């Protein structure tokens, strides 16, 4: 049994961490902080947890958190995670940070986040928390930087295309479709239901911040620089991300060759499923088929007309894109079966 704390537990990601950790056999939630809701039972903010836990929110007091918890999940806005992580690491706590504060290299932050990293030395401690790529390093990690949600779907779905060595690496298009919960609990006209129902709204169509980590993680597979042309769109979903990748082939590839690469990369991965069926309604990945689970469905199609390899990656942005992946990392860090507590099937239809 490990004592865990959740700092910033009132958001949607915080709620998912609570929901999944409450039933986790190896985790004892000691602390769930929320400045606004301190003293309130968590189900006041997360009603799905009524009768599942009587835990109450407490004030964010890092000293108390450090003294009571071996592991801490940081679910704070970008920029406020860094100082909290520093304090906790100094107290020997092992930290899983869900913000972007430790995902990149020092020199990337000014360009992509307009932000100088306050504790660059901590970056050397940080491990990028994508288990499928960094399982060994995560085992002993003190600080795990949980990947972004769009990044997770994009990296896992585009990686096989890069692995073929047969696509142009300087123009990988990723056209992403994102559900509203991706923007968190902060209310704005953009998330107002009459404005969000039935929409297709491109936002940050170029230079989206997740581009940096997608390129960072794909480069080693490509043996060199990868340039990702990412354009996200808000569409009418609450949960879910679909990353549609368009890569251009430099030579002929066959379905069999691609299947081989997909199998080598993902057949033994507990949370990546290869979805490329020839029949039925669910031939390719669709967020609707993974929502509520930690699965990432990946698929592909070859377009002979334009020598293009189309890739698809579907996840639940709050689970594999955030809380579920954080717990997957936690499981690896404490050396138990990676699927513990996050192996639920998706909830369909929603």
């Amino acid at each position: 049994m490990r004592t865990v704390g959740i700092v910033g537990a009132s958001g949607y990601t915080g709620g998912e961490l609570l929901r999944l950790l409450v039933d986790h056999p190896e985790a004892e939630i000691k602390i769930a902080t929320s400045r606004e809701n301190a003293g309130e039972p968590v189900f006041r903010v997360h009603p799905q947890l009524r009768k599942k836990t009587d835990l109450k929110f407490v004030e964010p007091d890092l000293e108390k958190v450090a003294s009571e918890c071996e592991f801490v999940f940081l679910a704070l806005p970008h920029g406020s995670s860094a100082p909290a992580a520093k304090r906790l690491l100094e107290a020997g706590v092992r930290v899983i940070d869900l913000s972007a504060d430790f995902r990149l290299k020092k020199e990337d932050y000014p360009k992509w986040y307009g932000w100088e990293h306050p504790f660059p030395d901590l970056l050397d401690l940080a491990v990028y928390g994508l288990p499928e790529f960094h399982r060994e390093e995560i085992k002993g990690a003190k600080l795990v930087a949980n990947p972004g949600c769009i990044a997770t779907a994009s990296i896992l779905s585009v990686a096989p295309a890069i692995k073929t060595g047969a696509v142009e690496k300087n123009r990988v298009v990723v056209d992403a479709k994102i559900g509203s919960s991706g923007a968190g609990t902060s209310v704005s006209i953009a998330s107002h239901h009459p404005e969000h129902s039935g929409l297709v709204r491109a936002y940050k169509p170029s230079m989206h911040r997740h581009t940096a980590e997608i390129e960072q993680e794909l480069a080693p597979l490509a043996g060199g620089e990868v340039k990702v042309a990412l354009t996200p769109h808000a569409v009418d979903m609450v949960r879910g991300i679909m990353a549609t990748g368009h890569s251009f082939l430099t030579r002929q590839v066959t379905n069999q060759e691609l299947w081989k690469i997909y199998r080598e990369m993902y057949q033994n991965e507990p949370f990546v499923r290869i979805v490329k069926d020839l029949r039925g309604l669910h031939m390719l990945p669709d967020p609707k088929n993974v929502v509520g689970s930690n699965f990432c469905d990946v698929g592909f199609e070859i377009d002979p007309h334009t020598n293009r390899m189309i890739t698809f990656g579907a996840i639940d942005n709050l689970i594999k894109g955030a809380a579920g992946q954080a717990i997957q990392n936690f499981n690896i860090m404490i050396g138990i079966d990676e699927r513990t507590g996050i192996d639920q099937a998706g909830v369909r239809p929603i």
Partner: protein
Amino acid sequence: MKFKCPECDGDIEAKEVIEGEILSCPDCGAELEVAKDKKGNFELKVAESEGEDWGE
């Protein structure tokens, strides 16, 4: 008996098969017809499948 799916090279196991029987590949869902090659050994051929096509 062990077969390879002609579509995706996936492994397909079947206890015993009869000619003309339709098997489905677990990996890619291809419908495969059990046939006999020239030497009389069983082999799998892709049965024609109609992809979903809608939307103008």
